[in-house]
Protein backbone atom coordinates (compact mmCIF):
# COMPACT_ATOMS: atom_id res chain seq x y z
CA UNK A 1 0.00 0.00 0.00
CA UNK A 2 1.17 3.54 -0.66
CA UNK A 3 1.93 4.99 2.78
CA UNK A 4 2.87 8.49 1.50
CA UNK A 5 -0.34 8.90 -0.53
CA UNK A 6 -2.48 7.56 2.30
CA UNK A 7 -0.87 10.02 4.74
CA UNK A 8 -1.38 12.79 2.21
CA UNK A 9 -5.06 11.83 2.00
CA UNK A 10 -5.37 12.01 5.78
CA UNK A 11 -3.80 15.46 5.66
CA UNK A 12 -6.36 16.61 3.13
CA UNK A 13 -9.03 15.79 5.68
CA UNK A 14 -7.39 18.14 8.22
CA UNK A 15 -3.94 19.56 8.99
CA UNK A 16 -2.27 17.31 11.54
CA UNK A 17 0.79 16.78 13.69
CA UNK A 18 2.93 13.74 12.91
CA UNK A 19 1.68 11.85 15.95
CA UNK A 20 -1.96 12.51 14.99
CA UNK A 21 -1.26 11.20 11.51
CA UNK A 22 0.31 8.06 12.92
CA UNK A 23 -2.64 7.57 15.27
CA UNK A 24 -5.21 7.88 12.45
CA UNK A 25 -3.17 5.82 10.01
CA UNK A 26 -2.83 3.00 12.54
CA UNK A 27 -6.55 3.18 13.41
CA UNK A 28 -7.82 2.96 9.84
CA UNK A 29 -5.07 1.30 7.85
CA UNK A 30 -2.50 -0.18 10.24
CA UNK A 31 -4.49 -3.24 11.33
CA UNK A 32 -1.92 -4.77 13.62
CA UNK A 33 1.06 -3.26 11.81
CA UNK A 34 1.57 0.22 13.29
CA UNK A 35 3.60 2.74 11.33
CA UNK A 36 6.99 3.45 13.00
CA UNK A 37 7.39 7.11 14.05
CA UNK A 38 10.63 7.25 12.05
CA UNK A 39 8.76 6.37 8.86
CA UNK A 40 6.07 8.97 9.59
CA UNK A 41 8.56 11.83 9.90
CA UNK A 42 10.76 10.64 7.03
CA UNK A 43 7.67 10.48 4.80
CA UNK A 44 6.50 13.94 5.90
CA UNK A 45 9.96 15.33 5.15
CA UNK A 46 9.87 13.85 1.62
CA UNK A 47 6.34 15.16 1.05
CA UNK A 48 7.48 18.64 2.19
CA UNK A 49 10.55 18.46 -0.07
CA UNK A 50 8.29 17.58 -3.03
CA UNK A 51 5.90 20.45 -2.31
CA UNK A 52 2.98 18.20 -1.32
CA UNK A 53 2.78 19.52 2.24
CA UNK A 54 4.09 22.47 4.18
CA UNK A 55 5.19 22.29 7.77
CA UNK A 56 3.91 24.99 10.09
CA UNK A 57 6.04 26.80 12.63
CA UNK A 58 7.29 24.61 15.46
CA UNK A 59 4.92 25.08 18.35
CA UNK A 60 6.38 26.68 21.48
CA UNK A 61 8.47 24.42 23.67
CA UNK A 62 8.17 21.52 21.31
CA UNK A 63 10.55 19.50 19.14
CA UNK A 64 10.22 18.95 15.39
CA UNK A 65 7.42 16.44 15.99
CA UNK A 66 5.23 19.36 17.21
CA UNK A 67 4.92 20.88 13.74
CA UNK A 68 1.52 20.86 12.13
CA UNK A 69 1.52 19.76 8.49
CA UNK A 70 -0.85 21.21 5.89
CA UNK A 71 -1.50 19.75 2.42
CA UNK A 72 -0.75 21.99 -0.58
CA UNK A 73 -2.77 22.38 -3.78
CA UNK A 74 -0.24 20.11 -5.52
CA UNK A 75 -0.69 17.55 -2.74
CA UNK A 76 -4.47 17.60 -3.07
CA UNK A 77 -4.15 17.11 -6.83
CA UNK A 78 -1.83 14.16 -6.19
CA UNK A 79 -4.43 12.57 -3.89
CA UNK A 80 -7.22 13.13 -6.43
CA UNK A 81 -5.15 11.59 -9.24
CA UNK A 82 -4.28 8.57 -7.12
CA UNK A 83 -7.88 7.97 -6.04
CA UNK A 84 -9.30 8.35 -9.54
CA UNK A 85 -6.70 6.18 -11.34
CA UNK A 86 -7.49 2.47 -11.17
CA UNK A 87 -4.74 0.44 -9.56
CA UNK A 88 -2.98 -2.07 -11.81
CA UNK A 89 -5.38 -5.03 -11.79
CA UNK A 90 -3.24 -7.71 -10.20
CA UNK A 91 -4.43 -10.14 -7.54
CA UNK A 92 -4.09 -9.20 -3.85
CA UNK A 93 -4.89 -5.53 -4.28
CA UNK A 94 -7.21 -5.39 -1.33
CA UNK A 95 -5.08 -3.15 0.87
CA UNK A 96 -4.68 -0.47 -1.80
CA UNK A 97 -8.36 -0.56 -2.74
CA UNK A 98 -9.37 -0.53 0.91
CA UNK A 99 -7.26 2.60 1.55
CA UNK A 100 -8.65 4.35 -1.52
CA UNK A 101 -12.27 3.64 -0.60
CA UNK A 102 -11.87 4.72 3.04
CA UNK A 103 -9.99 7.90 2.08
CA UNK A 104 -12.46 8.77 -0.67
CA UNK A 105 -15.32 8.51 1.83
CA UNK A 106 -13.45 10.54 4.44
CA UNK A 107 -12.81 13.28 1.88
CA UNK A 108 -16.33 13.23 0.44
CA UNK A 109 -15.01 12.06 -2.93
CA UNK A 110 -17.04 9.80 -5.27
CA UNK A 111 -15.96 6.39 -3.97
CA UNK A 112 -18.65 4.69 -6.08
CA UNK A 113 -17.15 6.18 -9.22
CA UNK A 114 -13.63 5.04 -8.25
CA UNK A 115 -14.94 1.52 -7.66
CA UNK A 116 -16.67 1.53 -11.07
CA UNK A 117 -13.41 2.55 -12.73
CA UNK A 118 -11.50 -0.12 -10.84
CA UNK A 119 -14.07 -2.77 -11.71
CA UNK A 120 -13.82 -1.83 -15.41
CA UNK A 121 -10.01 -2.07 -15.24
CA UNK A 122 -10.32 -5.49 -13.61
CA UNK A 123 -12.71 -6.71 -16.30
CA UNK A 124 -10.46 -5.40 -19.07
CA UNK A 125 -7.58 -7.42 -17.58
CA UNK A 126 -9.87 -10.46 -17.25
CA UNK A 127 -10.76 -10.15 -20.94
CA UNK A 128 -7.05 -10.22 -21.80
CA UNK A 129 -6.57 -13.37 -19.70
CA UNK A 130 -9.64 -14.97 -21.30
CA UNK A 131 -8.12 -14.27 -24.71
CA UNK A 132 -4.90 -16.00 -23.58
CA UNK A 133 -6.99 -19.06 -22.71
CA UNK A 134 -8.46 -19.17 -26.20
CA UNK A 135 -5.14 -19.22 -27.97
CA UNK A 136 -2.55 -20.91 -25.75
CA UNK A 137 -1.74 -24.35 -24.36
CA UNK A 138 -3.14 -25.88 -21.21
CA UNK A 139 -0.28 -24.66 -18.99
CA UNK A 140 -1.00 -21.08 -20.03
CA UNK A 141 -4.70 -21.75 -19.49
CA UNK A 142 -3.98 -22.82 -15.92
CA UNK A 143 -1.87 -19.71 -15.29
CA UNK A 144 -4.57 -17.50 -16.78
CA UNK A 145 -7.20 -19.27 -14.64
CA UNK A 146 -5.19 -18.50 -11.51
CA UNK A 147 -5.23 -14.80 -12.37
CA UNK A 148 -8.89 -14.87 -13.40
CA UNK A 149 -10.10 -16.47 -10.17
CA UNK A 150 -8.11 -14.03 -8.03
CA UNK A 151 -9.29 -11.01 -10.01
CA UNK A 152 -12.82 -12.35 -9.68
CA UNK A 153 -12.38 -12.44 -5.91
CA UNK A 154 -11.25 -8.79 -6.02
CA UNK A 155 -14.33 -7.96 -8.06
CA UNK A 156 -16.61 -9.58 -5.52
CA UNK A 157 -15.01 -7.41 -2.86
CA UNK A 158 -15.47 -4.34 -5.09
CA UNK A 159 -19.16 -5.16 -5.66
CA UNK A 160 -19.85 -5.90 -1.99
CA UNK A 161 -18.06 -2.73 -0.95
CA UNK A 162 -20.02 -0.68 -3.51
CA UNK A 163 -23.22 -2.02 -1.97
CA UNK A 164 -22.05 -0.99 1.52
CA UNK A 165 -20.75 2.49 0.73
CA UNK A 166 -23.54 4.39 2.50
CA UNK A 167 -23.05 2.50 5.76
CA UNK A 168 -19.27 2.72 5.40
CA UNK A 169 -19.42 6.48 4.85
CA UNK A 170 -21.31 6.94 8.13
CA UNK A 171 -18.69 4.89 9.96
CA UNK A 172 -15.58 6.67 8.64
CA UNK A 173 -17.08 10.15 8.92
CA UNK A 174 -18.19 9.42 12.44
Amino acid sequence: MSVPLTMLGLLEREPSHGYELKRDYDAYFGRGKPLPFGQVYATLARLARDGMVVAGEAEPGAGPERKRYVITEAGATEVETWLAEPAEPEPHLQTVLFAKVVLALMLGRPADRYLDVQRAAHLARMRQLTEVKRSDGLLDVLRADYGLFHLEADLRWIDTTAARLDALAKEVRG
Partner: protein
Amino acid sequence: MTASRPGAQASAQSLIEARDVVKSFGQTPALRGASVAVARGEILAVMGPSGSGKSTLLHCLAGIFTPDGGEIWFDGRRLDTLGEAERTKLRRTAFGFVFQFGQLVPELSIADNIALPLLLNRVRRKDAYEKAARWLDRLELGDLGGRRTGELSGGQAQRVALARALVMQPQVLFADEPTGSLDSLTGEMVMDLIVSLAREEETTVVVVTHEARVAACADREILVRDGMVFDPQAAGVGR
Protein backbone atom coordinates in the same frame (compact mmCIF):
# COMPACT_ATOMS: atom_id res chain seq x y z
CA MET B 1 -24.82 5.33 -23.73
CA THR B 2 -26.94 7.08 -26.26
CA ALA B 3 -29.27 9.90 -25.42
CA SER B 4 -32.92 9.66 -26.37
CA ARG B 5 -33.68 11.11 -29.78
CA PRO B 6 -37.39 10.63 -30.35
CA GLY B 7 -38.18 9.96 -33.97
CA ALA B 8 -34.57 9.47 -34.96
CA GLN B 9 -33.31 6.32 -36.60
CA ALA B 10 -31.27 3.89 -34.55
CA SER B 11 -27.57 4.62 -34.32
CA ALA B 12 -25.85 3.64 -37.54
CA GLN B 13 -23.66 1.00 -35.95
CA SER B 14 -26.14 -0.49 -33.50
CA LEU B 15 -28.38 -3.46 -34.18
CA ILE B 16 -30.36 -3.14 -31.00
CA GLU B 17 -30.69 -0.18 -28.71
CA ALA B 18 -32.50 0.99 -25.58
CA ARG B 19 -32.97 4.72 -25.17
CA ASP B 20 -33.87 6.14 -21.78
CA VAL B 21 -36.00 3.12 -20.98
CA VAL B 22 -38.24 3.32 -17.92
CA LYS B 23 -40.04 0.27 -16.54
CA SER B 24 -41.85 -0.26 -13.24
CA PHE B 25 -43.64 -3.21 -11.71
CA GLY B 26 -46.44 -1.71 -9.65
CA GLN B 27 -44.81 0.91 -7.43
CA THR B 28 -41.36 -0.61 -7.85
CA PRO B 29 -39.14 1.00 -10.48
CA ALA B 30 -36.93 -1.54 -12.28
CA LEU B 31 -35.42 0.69 -14.98
CA ARG B 32 -35.04 4.45 -14.55
CA GLY B 33 -33.76 5.77 -17.85
CA ALA B 34 -31.56 2.92 -19.08
CA SER B 35 -29.75 3.39 -22.37
CA VAL B 36 -27.49 1.00 -24.23
CA ALA B 37 -26.59 0.36 -27.86
CA VAL B 38 -25.36 -3.03 -29.04
CA ALA B 39 -23.45 -3.17 -32.30
CA ARG B 40 -24.10 -5.79 -34.94
CA GLY B 41 -22.03 -8.89 -34.16
CA GLU B 42 -21.07 -7.61 -30.73
CA ILE B 43 -21.13 -9.73 -27.58
CA LEU B 44 -22.29 -7.55 -24.68
CA ALA B 45 -22.31 -8.60 -21.04
CA VAL B 46 -24.88 -6.96 -18.77
CA MET B 47 -23.78 -7.08 -15.14
CA GLY B 48 -25.20 -5.77 -11.90
CA PRO B 49 -26.36 -6.75 -8.44
CA SER B 50 -29.51 -8.79 -7.87
CA GLY B 51 -32.57 -6.64 -8.43
CA SER B 52 -30.61 -3.95 -10.29
CA GLY B 53 -32.80 -4.25 -13.39
CA LYS B 54 -30.41 -6.15 -15.66
CA SER B 55 -32.88 -8.93 -16.53
CA THR B 56 -35.63 -6.35 -17.02
CA LEU B 57 -33.37 -4.53 -19.48
CA LEU B 58 -32.84 -7.79 -21.40
CA HIS B 59 -36.57 -8.47 -21.45
CA CYS B 60 -37.26 -4.94 -22.75
CA LEU B 61 -34.58 -5.24 -25.45
CA ALA B 62 -36.09 -8.58 -26.50
CA GLY B 63 -39.60 -7.16 -26.74
CA ILE B 64 -40.89 -9.41 -23.95
CA PHE B 65 -41.63 -6.43 -21.68
CA THR B 66 -43.07 -3.18 -23.00
CA PRO B 67 -41.29 -0.17 -21.47
CA ASP B 68 -43.37 2.48 -19.65
CA GLY B 69 -41.15 5.13 -21.24
CA GLY B 70 -38.26 5.44 -23.66
CA GLU B 71 -37.65 3.55 -26.87
CA ILE B 72 -36.34 0.20 -28.07
CA TRP B 73 -34.88 0.06 -31.57
CA PHE B 74 -34.04 -3.09 -33.48
CA ASP B 75 -32.45 -3.15 -36.92
CA GLY B 76 -33.54 0.37 -37.73
CA ARG B 77 -37.13 0.28 -36.44
CA ARG B 78 -39.00 0.88 -33.21
CA LEU B 79 -39.70 -2.38 -31.42
CA ASP B 80 -41.61 -1.10 -28.39
CA THR B 81 -44.44 0.34 -30.50
CA LEU B 82 -45.03 -2.86 -32.46
CA GLY B 83 -48.19 -4.87 -31.73
CA GLU B 84 -47.97 -8.07 -29.74
CA ALA B 85 -48.37 -10.27 -32.84
CA GLU B 86 -45.50 -8.57 -34.63
CA ARG B 87 -43.28 -8.77 -31.56
CA THR B 88 -44.04 -12.44 -31.12
CA LYS B 89 -43.08 -13.03 -34.73
CA LEU B 90 -39.85 -11.12 -34.23
CA ARG B 91 -39.02 -13.14 -31.12
CA ARG B 92 -39.58 -16.36 -33.02
CA THR B 93 -37.56 -15.43 -36.08
CA ALA B 94 -34.95 -12.83 -35.20
CA PHE B 95 -34.22 -13.57 -31.53
CA GLY B 96 -32.98 -16.65 -29.70
CA PHE B 97 -33.13 -17.17 -25.94
CA VAL B 98 -31.13 -19.13 -23.38
CA PHE B 99 -32.10 -18.96 -19.71
CA GLN B 100 -30.44 -20.13 -16.50
CA PHE B 101 -32.35 -23.39 -16.48
CA GLY B 102 -32.65 -24.68 -20.04
CA GLN B 103 -36.46 -24.44 -19.98
CA LEU B 104 -36.66 -27.32 -22.39
CA VAL B 105 -39.98 -29.08 -22.88
CA PRO B 106 -39.68 -32.23 -20.72
CA GLU B 107 -42.35 -34.19 -22.63
CA LEU B 108 -40.39 -33.91 -25.87
CA SER B 109 -37.18 -35.59 -26.98
CA ILE B 110 -33.96 -33.59 -27.36
CA ALA B 111 -34.33 -33.57 -31.16
CA ASP B 112 -37.98 -32.42 -30.81
CA ASN B 113 -36.87 -29.55 -28.54
CA ILE B 114 -34.31 -28.32 -31.06
CA ALA B 115 -36.67 -28.73 -34.03
CA LEU B 116 -39.53 -26.98 -32.22
CA PRO B 117 -38.73 -23.36 -33.23
CA LEU B 118 -38.46 -24.48 -36.87
CA LEU B 119 -41.78 -26.35 -36.71
CA LEU B 120 -43.44 -23.30 -35.12
CA ASN B 121 -42.16 -21.29 -38.06
CA ARG B 122 -43.70 -23.81 -40.47
CA VAL B 123 -40.46 -25.33 -41.70
CA ARG B 124 -41.16 -28.75 -43.23
CA ARG B 125 -40.88 -31.52 -40.65
CA LYS B 126 -38.16 -33.40 -42.54
CA ASP B 127 -36.06 -30.26 -42.99
CA ALA B 128 -36.55 -29.26 -39.35
CA TYR B 129 -35.30 -32.60 -38.03
CA GLU B 130 -32.37 -32.68 -40.45
CA LYS B 131 -31.34 -29.27 -39.22
CA ALA B 132 -31.81 -30.31 -35.58
CA ALA B 133 -29.58 -33.34 -36.22
CA ARG B 134 -26.87 -31.09 -37.67
CA TRP B 135 -26.99 -28.91 -34.56
CA LEU B 136 -26.82 -31.99 -32.31
CA ASP B 137 -23.66 -33.08 -34.12
CA ARG B 138 -22.21 -29.59 -33.98
CA LEU B 139 -22.65 -29.50 -30.21
CA GLU B 140 -21.36 -33.06 -29.82
CA LEU B 141 -24.76 -34.32 -28.69
CA GLY B 142 -25.29 -36.51 -31.75
CA ASP B 143 -26.32 -39.69 -29.95
CA LEU B 144 -28.71 -37.98 -27.51
CA GLY B 145 -31.41 -36.91 -29.98
CA GLY B 146 -33.90 -39.54 -28.88
CA ARG B 147 -33.48 -38.97 -25.12
CA ARG B 148 -35.72 -36.93 -22.85
CA THR B 149 -34.46 -33.74 -21.25
CA GLY B 150 -34.56 -35.28 -17.77
CA GLU B 151 -31.74 -37.61 -18.78
CA LEU B 152 -29.32 -34.76 -19.48
CA SER B 153 -26.67 -33.21 -17.23
CA GLY B 154 -26.91 -29.45 -16.60
CA GLY B 155 -24.20 -28.73 -19.17
CA GLN B 156 -25.81 -30.95 -21.80
CA ALA B 157 -29.20 -29.30 -21.18
CA GLN B 158 -27.68 -25.85 -21.74
CA ARG B 159 -26.04 -27.03 -24.96
CA VAL B 160 -29.44 -28.26 -26.15
CA ALA B 161 -30.99 -24.93 -25.12
CA LEU B 162 -28.26 -23.17 -27.10
CA ALA B 163 -28.93 -25.31 -30.17
CA ARG B 164 -32.66 -24.56 -29.86
CA ALA B 165 -31.90 -20.84 -29.56
CA LEU B 166 -29.63 -20.77 -32.61
CA VAL B 167 -31.42 -23.19 -34.93
CA MET B 168 -33.43 -20.34 -36.49
CA GLN B 169 -30.17 -18.42 -37.07
CA PRO B 170 -31.40 -15.43 -35.06
CA GLN B 171 -29.85 -12.01 -35.39
CA VAL B 172 -29.66 -11.62 -31.62
CA LEU B 173 -29.12 -14.22 -28.91
CA PHE B 174 -30.37 -13.18 -25.47
CA ALA B 175 -28.87 -15.20 -22.64
CA ASP B 176 -30.01 -14.66 -19.04
CA GLU B 177 -27.52 -16.18 -16.58
CA PRO B 178 -26.77 -19.05 -18.99
CA THR B 179 -24.09 -20.52 -16.71
CA GLY B 180 -25.75 -19.64 -13.39
CA SER B 181 -26.62 -23.22 -12.49
CA LEU B 182 -23.40 -24.83 -13.74
CA ASP B 183 -20.03 -25.50 -12.10
CA SER B 184 -17.04 -23.36 -13.17
CA LEU B 185 -15.63 -25.67 -15.83
CA THR B 186 -18.99 -26.61 -17.38
CA GLY B 187 -20.06 -22.98 -17.31
CA GLU B 188 -16.86 -22.02 -19.10
CA MET B 189 -17.47 -24.64 -21.79
CA VAL B 190 -21.03 -23.38 -22.35
CA MET B 191 -19.82 -19.77 -22.52
CA ASP B 192 -17.02 -20.72 -24.94
CA LEU B 193 -19.65 -22.38 -27.13
CA ILE B 194 -21.87 -19.29 -27.04
CA VAL B 195 -18.94 -17.09 -28.08
CA SER B 196 -17.60 -19.38 -30.81
CA LEU B 197 -21.03 -20.12 -32.30
CA ALA B 198 -21.98 -16.44 -32.18
CA ARG B 199 -18.79 -15.57 -34.07
CA GLU B 200 -19.39 -18.29 -36.67
CA GLU B 201 -23.06 -17.38 -37.13
CA GLU B 202 -22.40 -13.61 -36.87
CA THR B 203 -24.99 -13.46 -34.12
CA THR B 204 -25.17 -10.47 -31.77
CA VAL B 205 -25.27 -11.58 -28.14
CA VAL B 206 -26.64 -9.90 -25.03
CA VAL B 207 -25.71 -11.96 -21.97
CA VAL B 208 -26.90 -11.09 -18.48
CA THR B 209 -24.57 -12.44 -15.84
CA HIS B 210 -23.37 -11.77 -12.33
CA GLU B 211 -20.20 -13.78 -12.98
CA ALA B 212 -17.15 -11.74 -13.92
CA ARG B 213 -15.49 -14.66 -15.70
CA VAL B 214 -18.54 -14.97 -17.95
CA ALA B 215 -18.55 -11.22 -18.61
CA ALA B 216 -14.85 -11.41 -19.49
CA CYS B 217 -15.78 -13.62 -22.47
CA ALA B 218 -17.78 -10.73 -23.96
CA ASP B 219 -16.42 -7.89 -26.08
CA ARG B 220 -17.45 -5.37 -23.42
CA GLU B 221 -19.66 -5.04 -20.39
CA ILE B 222 -22.15 -2.60 -18.97
CA LEU B 223 -23.21 -2.35 -15.35
CA VAL B 224 -26.84 -1.88 -14.36
CA ARG B 225 -27.30 -0.33 -10.95
CA ASP B 226 -30.56 0.98 -9.50
CA GLY B 227 -32.20 0.75 -12.90
CA MET B 228 -29.59 2.83 -14.71
CA VAL B 229 -26.71 1.84 -16.97
CA PHE B 230 -23.06 2.59 -16.30
CA ASP B 231 -21.08 2.08 -19.49
CA PRO B 232 -17.34 2.00 -18.72
CA GLN B 233 -16.43 2.43 -22.38
CA ALA B 234 -18.61 5.52 -22.72
CA ALA B 235 -17.03 6.81 -19.51
CA GLY B 236 -13.59 6.27 -21.06
CA VAL B 237 -12.40 3.54 -18.70
CA GLY B 238 -11.81 -0.18 -18.86
CA ARG B 239 -10.20 -0.32 -22.29
